[in-house]
């Protein structure tokens, strides 16, 4: 049905396309230039020499210092450590969140009514209302009590409970026809087998959409790492960029922009790889 519809409408729009020049392209191109301009300029600056970055009016044409600046950004900011820490934090949060939500959503949808299910549901809804910013001081004190300040545990654990993921997966699990579950049970598949061999593959689009959202969010988190880590050994990329900007001197913009470009690569790759499934999983979420 859906396929037939889209086929029909693509034929129709083909006719429209042939009939007149399409202004949509012009508008899209204008917006594309406006929105992409900051990144484009970052590329230009990353090719300039330090002296050229201070010129006024600014230079708008690239020079040949790109590789030198990249190398300086890499060594000067201890990029290897920053990338490693950001990656550990991000993967820890993302995978932990997805596994916890997967288990929780499965428990709440596939075992009928059990005592305490309502209690769990309430805990989840309350968690949804409490972003880290509104509980930041006690969470810091808690990390202090655990002796976790300036550790990976402190960067990861406070973010593991994810109401968003759980609610999204709960909804998607409910939409899987129960015949699958019936036949799996007749074939003697246990609950965990059903979860991993049938539910997970069936909801792959939603899971990759969730992975994208959580990865980008965790990679870009700034306030919590700023507060909870203080040694350069534990510093994440977002804070490392801040440290490149000196308070009292002319900032080395060419090096800073190189670092920004390096730091943008991991989440950008994830967005390019998964943005289709994000669109699909959101479509799923918002109903018809």
């Amino acid at each position: 049905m859906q396929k037939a519809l889209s086929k029909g409408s693509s034929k129709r729009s083909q006719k429209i396309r042939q009939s007149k020049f399409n202004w949509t392209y012009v508008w899209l191109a204008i917006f594309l230039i406006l929105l992409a301009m900051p990144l484009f300029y970052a590329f230009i600056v990353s090719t300039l020499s330090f002296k050229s970055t201070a010129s006024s009016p600014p230079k708008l044409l690239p020079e040949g210092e790109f590789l030198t600046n990249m190398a300086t950004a890499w060594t000067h900011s201890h990029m290897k450590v920053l990338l490693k820490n950001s990656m550990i934090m991000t993967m820890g949060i993302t995978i932990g969140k997805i596994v916890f939500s997967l288990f929780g959503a499965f428990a709440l949808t596939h075992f009928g009514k059990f005592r305490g299910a309502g209690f769990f549901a309430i805990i989840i809804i309350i968690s949804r209302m409490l972003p880290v910013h509104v509980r930041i001081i006690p969470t810091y004190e808690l990390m202090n009590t655990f002796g976790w300040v300036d550790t990976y545990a402190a960067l990861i654990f406070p973010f593991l409970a994810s109401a968003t993921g759980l609610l999204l997966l709960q909804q998607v699990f409910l939409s899987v026809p129960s015949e699958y579950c019936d036949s799996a049970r007749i074939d003697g598949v246990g609950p965990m087998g059903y979860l991993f061999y049938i539910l997970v593959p069936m909801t792959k689009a939603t899971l990759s959409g969730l992975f994208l959202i959580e990865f980008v969010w965790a990679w870009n988190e700034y306030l919590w790492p700023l507060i909870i880590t203080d040694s350069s050994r534990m510093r994440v990329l977002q804070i490392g960029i801040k440290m490149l900007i000196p308070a009292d001197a002319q900032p080395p913009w060419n090096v800073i922009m190189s670092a920004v470009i390096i730091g943008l690569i991991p989440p950008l790759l994830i967005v390019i790889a998964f943005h289709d499934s994000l669109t699909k999983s959101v479509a799923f979420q918002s109903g018809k």
Partner: protein
Amino acid sequence: MCMERSRFPNKVLPYLLLIPAAVSSIIFIIIPAAQSLYQSFFFSHPFTGQMRYVGLKHYQSLFSDPEYLNSVRITFVFSAFVVIVGMGLSLLLSVLLSKRIRGVSYFQLGLLWPYALSPAMAATLWALLTHPSIGPISHFLEFLIGKRMNWITDAFSAQFMLIIASIWKNMGYNIVFFLAGLANIPRDFSEAARIDGAGPLREFFTITFPLLSPVTFFLVVTNILYALFDIFPMVDLLTRGGPGRSTDLLIYKLYRDGFLNFNIGIASAQSVILFVVVSILTLLIFKFGSSRIHYQ
């Protein structure tokens, strides 16, 4: 979906499966939040940590503190711009991007990439672009209006720049969700409107926009949350609340009071107020969002 769905007759497993999510929620979310509420009723000494009960005094002093009221006001204005201008532009772009024309997926990717960019990096980029002496945007604006916008010294320029940068940063996110919403609108509706002689504008306001309202509503709430919290790195890296507290948004004030001035009681009271705002928004999502769950 059938309500009488098949179940696994296992009595212990669901509890085991819920333990990770529930325990981490309680330890890392609910208890700290309760503590925030508790601490907001106490004065705690910055150095000795001694606590003295003061009741609602922190709340009273916040709401009579011109600095805090200033933060409330600018956060409100800021959110309004992010929601109205930012979402308006994103919707316009999404409608263009949802047309079935050749090469549109490249445009989609080209327009939603700022989603991947972190607020901290976006702030760094804009610090350079709008730098009073070497930024290309400052030079271009000077060329246009004959006056240089210096956000380091001028309050209006700082607010203007922060709003533009924040809107720009969040457009990718908005576009992702609007596109998903637009993809769900059946094409026959717009066909029918066109046959009845409705122009593109009328079609948009009578068909597309009403059918998009669940997504729009969801985005209004997430955009407000973005303006409330996720903007922190922008303020911290660009303006540090200045000049003259002109960009001292609520989250930055909370950070200043709690982590720079060690005024735990006042900062906790601010957390609780933010919590109330977020709760109202979340409840609205649940109330509105419940219509999205379809049991067939």
